[in-house]
């Protein structure tokens, strides 16, 4: 089944690069290639792509906001955020907004397509530093502040274990070997973790808004 892809990137060079990578892959269909958040939102209102590749630094709307709207309107769309360095705080913000994957900006054409396919296959990449940040976010890291009374980690024990192993720098393969699961199962767990992080973040935002008397 051919996956439809929406690309949101304001730099023409990269818009072209990503478009070329999608067009070059017979398993992918380019639904749209836009350079503004407004255009992306307009398109999302009309059609739901299978995958959205998005750069955060858009000229009009914050990329994270576009991801949040996309997650609301088209929950089935896999959002992959384009990042220069892969471990900056923007990636975590994007995941919290609903992204489930990320792609280095200098990735080769093959890698771009491979990442899209991996996302469609239900897996998500995670680097040790992102794993550490996620653990911190759920207040599961040893150095994190203790969780508040209302907080109960939504992660399963297996998911927590995976995060801890990845954070230590172990590869997916090693983690899989240790837990006696396949690397595909590992990345599937990661995707579930990302989804839970998004839900958790929304819930936390609602809770905090309630605390502040906003709702």
């Amino acid at each position, binding site marked *: 089944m051919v996956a439809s892809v929406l690309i949101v990137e304001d730099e023409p060079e990269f818009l072209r690069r990503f478009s070329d990578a999608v067009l070059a892959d017979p398993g992918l269909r380019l639904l749209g290639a836009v350079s503004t958040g407004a255009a992306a939102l307009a398109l999302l209102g009309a059609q739901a792509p299978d995958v959205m590749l998005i750069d955060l630094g858009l000229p009009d709307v914050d990329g994270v906001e576009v991801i949040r709207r996309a997650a609301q309107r088209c929950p089935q769309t896999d959002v992959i955020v384009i990042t220069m*360095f892969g471990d900056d705080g923007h990636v975590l913000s994007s995941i919290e907004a609903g992204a489930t994957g990320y792609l280095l900006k200098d990735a080769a054409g093959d890698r771009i397509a491979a990442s899209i396919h991996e996302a469609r296959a239900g897996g998500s990449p995670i680097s040790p530093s992102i794993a550490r940040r996620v653990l911190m976010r759920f207040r599961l890291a040893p150095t994190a502040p203790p969780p508040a009374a209302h907080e109960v980690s939504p992660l399963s024990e297996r998911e927590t274990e995976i995060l801890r192993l990845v954070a230590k720098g172990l590869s997916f393969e090693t983690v899989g070997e240790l837990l006696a699961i396949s690397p595909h199962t590992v990345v599937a767990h990661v995707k579930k973790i990302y989804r839970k992080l998004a839900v958790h973040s929304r819930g936390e935002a609602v809770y905090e808004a309630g605390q502040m008397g906003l709702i």
Partner: protein
Amino acid sequence: MPTPTGATIVQGAGGVATRAGRGGKRHAWLLLRRSFGRALRIGLVALVGAAVAAPSQEVSQRLEPTAVEVQLSAAAEPSQLAADRWAPGTLPDNWARSHPGMMGPNAWYRIAFELPPRRPGSGSWALYIPYLYDGGRFWLNGEPLASIAQTTASTHVRWERPHLIVMPDSQLRVGRNEVLLRAVLTDPGANLRLQRMTIGPSDELLPFYERRIFWVRTMPQGAIVTCLVVGAFVLFIWWRRRSEVLYGLFGLAAVLWSIRTLTFVIEQMPSPWWPWWRAVYHAATGGFIVVLALFAMRFAGVARPWLERGLAAYWLIGPVAMLASGGRLDSTVGFVWTGGMIPVGLALVGFTAWAAWKYRTGASLALMLAVALGAAAGIHDYLIAWDGAFRLPEVFAGWAAHRIFLLHHGANLLLLVMVAILTLRFVQALDAAEELNRNLESRVAARERELQARHDEIAQLEREQAAQDERQRIMQDLHDGLGSQLFTSLSRAERGALDADGLVQVLRECIADMRLAFDVAAPDRRGLRAVLGDFLFRWETLLRDAGVRLATEIALPDSLRLPPTVTMQLLRIAQEALTNALKHAAATEVRVTVRQEADGSLQLQVSDDGCGLAGASARATGRGLGNMASRAQRLGATIEVESLTRGTRIILRLSRPGDAR
């Protein structure tokens, strides 16, 4: 009515004489209580003034005969007296002056008085005599009236107290009455003095008697106890704090004065003790003056050791002379040596006046006034005691006959002033200590703040230095790595020596290097293990996409952190090795092993199963190896390149990773 002790205390109203030394304990207790209450009352009265003390009858019936008759006789009883040998005399009488050279066993006085018709219920009559130092016997109208013990071979007496002798109604008669007094004159040094006696109703005389009792007996008793207790207490303080010499001097003065004042209380003493007691008395009196002088000098902050030694030496002369002479020099010592204390006292007045002028404090002024009063009292007493030796104005002679000594009270005042001074000093010392504590606390707090500020400053400088170092490192890094590479590549591209693939290669290397910098400079300053994790995670994707499997083996404690420059160089070496394996070795598997040995050294191994050094492009690998070697050298690490049966292994050893730069 002869009494064996002669110590006569008389109840006025009932006319019943009660003799001390008689009666049970209960009686004595009652007496004591009564005496005490009366002493208090009389004391107050005496302090308020004589006018208040005066009897309140409308018309006084008191008689104070001045014209008497005197006879020197060996007779022991009135019946043995020669009726024709009476000679006229007057009261007060100083035998040594009125009858110079006349010595005999007894001096007899005949005092006649007319008893007026008494008002009904006016009570008994009595005879009041302010002092009779050596005792004597009284007869009234030929019948024995009272006896006040006299010095005998075994007992020495000296009565400071007054006497009130009740005259029984049965012995009195209306009209002329006659009192006979027999006083002892045996002692060649005897200094018989007889003050005017007062005859009148007991009620009228009692206040006079009690007033004098208060001054010559109650006050001294109180002074003895108070001085002894206070002196002992202050001496104890001095004993615990030897540096407080003023306390020691005051304590000594108080104890000396307490001993000296015993003279008012000790009325009878076994004769052999008498010279010793007199020596002690003189020592205490002179000692008090000397110690007072030392106190004043120390208080004024004047130290004259020679003067102090001189005073001490003079002080010793009196008691030593007394003891050496076995008491015979009592009068001489009393007159000459004690007299010598007068200049000392006057000098002391001058000195304290000078000190008061110099320091102008309330304490020094009070001390000066008290010393001046004390000196005046001392001179006054000296003149009274030795009234026979000086030609005194008539007015003073009359006063002298009362023999009221004042030094005692002056000394009490002096001691009070000294107590006040010491108390003030004590309070000031406490205040000073508290102030010092407060000062110290605030100084400690200030010092703490100072230290904290300096500490903060140092920490700030350290942070700035660290930031500076960091900037320096980044600049150096950009200069040496990225910058140098970009410039070289630019130059090569411009002269056409770099094709598109070469340019891509160069730029990818630049981006990879930048990523390394970001890994290392991550804001949360992660340990080596975490940085390696991100680095290898990236490489795993790259290698996988190229069909190369990456096997990693990392045995590092989570806590291991290295200086950023060291981490950076390590990662670059690893990156170079991985790049070589990816680009030139045609490997299917790359293995990266990083571990810390037991001795703390760090080992990085990158091995591949590729075609080895021989098969790879010699130029490219050569450049890569050269880079690695120079980086290793900068780290102080050793690097080995091994050719395996299949592939290559690069081993980097860093013996002291923490110290590397």
